[in-house]
């Protein structure tokens, strides 16, 4: 049986790379520290496999077919296609076909119908946190791309259920593996909308606090508020997957800071085991 090694979450955003020099020094220090702290905890958790729960920013999917959830079952996945991510040191990541296929099969048995891919591109959404966490040795990565970019998106309640399913799949895997989860994205931000640049600190802080309470209140609040808080905030779906996998135990907030220079309310969390 495999074991759950821990769940973590970190924000991402292109400007964390492209406009890094524009970030005020004090915020830069906090961001670096938060990413490093997550990296340290991740290393301590010693995952053999890391399920990276992230959106696809039009790197793999288009309007022809935009899956609600896609799981990467291939031997390997590709590094980020964005030209401005050229300095990222990994061009290819080993996958874990055996665990990924097991996850897909468990999902199908449990009434979930993920899409599968044998080769995905992991864009900045996955790679910026991995980069900034400074992991010397990358575990095998199983991408789980959850649509939070193009409507219709999976419901928030469903994302939470996906997390629970993921945990069940980990515990039913016949083999000794430690499986961790990294959820990326959020918290509030707005991209390509009239409100682009807006960060809703009140929403972010309330969301963070609700992760410590009842799932129903969290989902109800997000269902009501997300449509008003910028399209990037929809990425909190990935945090819900991690939360479900951690059995809703709540997380330790590593840091939260609104960073106008990168137009993201940046959150960093490690779930209680």
């Amino acid at each position: 049986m495999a074991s759950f090694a821990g769940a973590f979450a970190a924000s991402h955003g292109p400007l964390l790379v492209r406009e890094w020099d524009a970030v005020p020094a004090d915020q830069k220090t906090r961001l670096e520290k938060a990413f490093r702290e997550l990296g340290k905890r991740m290393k301590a958790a010693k995952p053999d496999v890391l399920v990276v729960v992230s959106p696809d920013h039009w790197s793999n999917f288009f309007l022809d077919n935009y899956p609600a959830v896609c799981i990467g079952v291939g031997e390997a996945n590709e590094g980020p296609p964005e030209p401005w991510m050229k300095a990222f040191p990994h061009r290819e990541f080993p996958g874990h076909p055996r665990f990924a296929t097991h996850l897909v099969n468990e999902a199908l048995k449990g009434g979930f119908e993920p899409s599968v891919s044998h080769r995905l591109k992991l864009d900045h959404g996955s790679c910026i946190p991995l980069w900034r966490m400074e992991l010397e040795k990358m575990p095998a990565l199983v991408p789980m791309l959850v649509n939070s970019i193009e409507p219709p998106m999976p419901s928030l309640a469903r994302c939470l259920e996906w997390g629970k399913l993921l945990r069940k799949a980990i515990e039913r895997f016949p083999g000794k593996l430690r499986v961790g989860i990294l959820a990326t994205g959020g918290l509030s931000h707005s991209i390509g909308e009239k409100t682009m640049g807006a960060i809703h600190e009140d929403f972010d802080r309330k969301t963070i606090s609700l992760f410590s309470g009842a799932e129903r209140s969290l989902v109800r609040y997000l269902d009501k508020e997300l449509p008003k808080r910028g399209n990037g905030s929809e990425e909190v779906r990935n945090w819900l997957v991690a939360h479900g996998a951690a059995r809703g135990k709540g997380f330790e907030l590593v840091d939260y800071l609104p960073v106008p220079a990168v137009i993201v309310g940046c959150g960093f969390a490690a779930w209680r085991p």
Partner: protein
Amino acid sequence: MRDYWLSKLFFDLQQPALAAEFKGNRDAVLARYPLSPEVRKAIADNDAPFLARRTNAYLLRYYFFTIGLKDAEFIRNLRGG
């Protein structure tokens, strides 16, 4: 509403080679996409509010980034100013 071909153009322009070609010869690239005259005009005019109603917001931002508009200018344009 989604204009498929407008969205496809923006999606395809994520490829550096096509983006470079677009910068050098915009008309040649546009000719490969069956865009309506109104959409062609909006592209020519950098009319972000018009385009925003027809494509995904992330794709729209990628497009304006690709053609070299700074975020601040893009946001002003998007807000109709």
